[in-house]
């Protein structure tokens, strides 16, 4: 981590979520964006198309989504901090190369501005339908990191965290935004300095393995004089294809997961509100958690012992935090038919109830409160 000066003058800005996303990326050191426009994410690429040349970066509008993530992977191996932004249907088109990024341990940030689906669904309406797509969309066993901002301010800050995590763990990091956060305009305070992670370099050492069998290897770039072999097929620590060797496959697939899971305590971030004496807990993320916080406060005013566990990290899943909730019942409000609720049920030791809204509108505090009280 290094403290650096922000490229944006410090102060109070009135950004929409997508603008804050672009500015946060630039602050984090992102100097390459490739993407294909899709509502409700397009303002991210529009802003980066204007801003990246200002800071010596490169912007490319590609021919489609899979080419976009392909370009991002290439840019990362050329040494850049790189990202793309899309929505659920676009993410689906990227999945093959996202698997390649996972297998080749390519640090990158993928912003998913979720909209109602399936398929092209409702282009401009918010939804939380991609929780499982980012986790399980590609083939095989792996772990990724996914973060979800609940405000414009947090969108800005989380972009910096996402780029840092991508470098720290050499993994694609997803930002789970949605149409509501994307187009919400809020006060965004930009600080004078921020902390950023740099890519770890180590001349002459393997790029796909460490002495520690479950560690994160250093990563060279093309042009630095290192011998670089990069493949989506099973490979040893030097990058050589070893597709017939069970030991190599086992070691690689274990490390790809464990490099994230064994650091889950450092990666996972949650926030608790009124949980000390709560009898009922809400577990929520993103825009849904804003409604949940308001519902929690209204419940308190009515004398109900309700608390909120707000997830900033969605993957790796905050299992310990949910398991540790000392309540009698957990409600999981989500803008889908029930995706996170299954994860909560898997780890919780008490009854878990799903609260849903699936019409492409943002869930309201009143709906959540009604679910708790009936």
């Amino acid at each position, binding site marked *: 981590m290094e403290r650096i000066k922000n490229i944006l003058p410090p102060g*109070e*800005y*009135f950004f929409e979520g997508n603008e804050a996303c672009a500015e946060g990326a630039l602050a984090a050191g992102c100097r390459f964006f490739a993407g294909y426009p899709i*509502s409700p994410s397009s303002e991210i690429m529009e802003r980066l198309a204007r801003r990246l040349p200002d800071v010596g970066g490169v912007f490319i509008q590609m021919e489609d989504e899979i080419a976009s993530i392909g370009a991002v992977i290439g840019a990362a191996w050329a040494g850049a901090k790189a990202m793309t932004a899309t929505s659920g249907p676009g993410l689906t088109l990227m999945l093959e190369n996202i698997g390649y990024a996972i297998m080749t341990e390519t640090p990158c940030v993928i912003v998913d501005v979720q909209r109602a689906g399936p398929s092209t669904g409702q*282009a*401009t309406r918010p939804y939380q339908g991609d929780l499982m797509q980012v986790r399980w969309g590609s083939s095989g066993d792996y772990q990724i990191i996914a973060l979800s901002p609940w*405000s414009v301010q947090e969108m800005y800050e989380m972009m910096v965290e996402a780029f840092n995590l991508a470098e720290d763990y050499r993994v694609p990091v997803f930002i789970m935004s949605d149409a*509501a956060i994307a*187009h*919400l*305009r*809020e*006060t965004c305070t930009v600080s004078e300095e921020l902390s950023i992670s740099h890519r770890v370099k180590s001349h002459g050492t393997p790029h796909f393995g460490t002495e520690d069998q479950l560690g994160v290897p250093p990563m060279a770039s093309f042009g630095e004089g290192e011998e670089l072999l990069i493949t989506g097929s099973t490979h040893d620590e030097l990058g050589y294809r070893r597709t017939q060797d069970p030991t190599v496959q086992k070691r690689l697939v274990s490390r790809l997961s464990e490099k994230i899971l064994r650091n889950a305590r450092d990666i996972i971030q949650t926030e608790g509100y009124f949980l000390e004496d709560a009898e009922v807990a809400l577990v929520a993320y993103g*825009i849904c958690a*804003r*409604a949940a*916080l*308001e519902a929690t*406060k209204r419940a308190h005013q009515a004398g109900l012992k309700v608390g909120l566990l707000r997830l900033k990290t969605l993957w790796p899943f905050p299992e310990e935090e949910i398991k540790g909730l000392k309540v009698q019942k957990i409600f999981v409000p989500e803008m889908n038919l029930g995706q996170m609720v299954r994860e909560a049920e898997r780890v919780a030791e008490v009854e878990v109830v799903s609260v849903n809204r699936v019409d492409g509108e*943002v869930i*309201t*505090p*009143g709906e959540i409160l009604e679910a708790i009280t009936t």
Partner: protein
Amino acid sequence: MVLSAQLLGQAAVIDKRCVAQSSAYGPESRGTPCRSDIIISEQPIDYPYVTEIDILITLSQEGYDNFAQSTKESVFFDPQLVSPSTHPKARHFPIPATETASKELRTRLAANVIILSACAAQTALVSKDSLTRAIEMTLGERHRALNLKALELGWDLGSKVETYA
């Protein structure tokens, strides 16, 4: 209306307040009613959408019919576009925004900033300096002068307007 809300929000941010602004419209609904919610608060804002309306600004009858009765404090409307209820609940302020824009600025397009500025002057939601700066920061050179004139015209109307009886 979206631009007005953005200008109001930007002005409130300059005034060091917490702001959340959202819009209900889509590319498929150009030319149809559009609505923008704005919350201005001294405290951080939990739920960023308006659940109870304190102040309504409307340039359409449909907007008025949908929201005026549930507005708690003040309704600012354009009498050329809206026929208000005969039993208004909130205080009503008629602002001839479209007429003023057409006459004084030769374009109806500035009516939104006129009525916004009138509302700001009457309610002291944001200061005139902040609203001026918000226009300067948000709008490109081509539209800046026109909207700054609209601000002056609206501020004048808002300072003098009497409650609709």
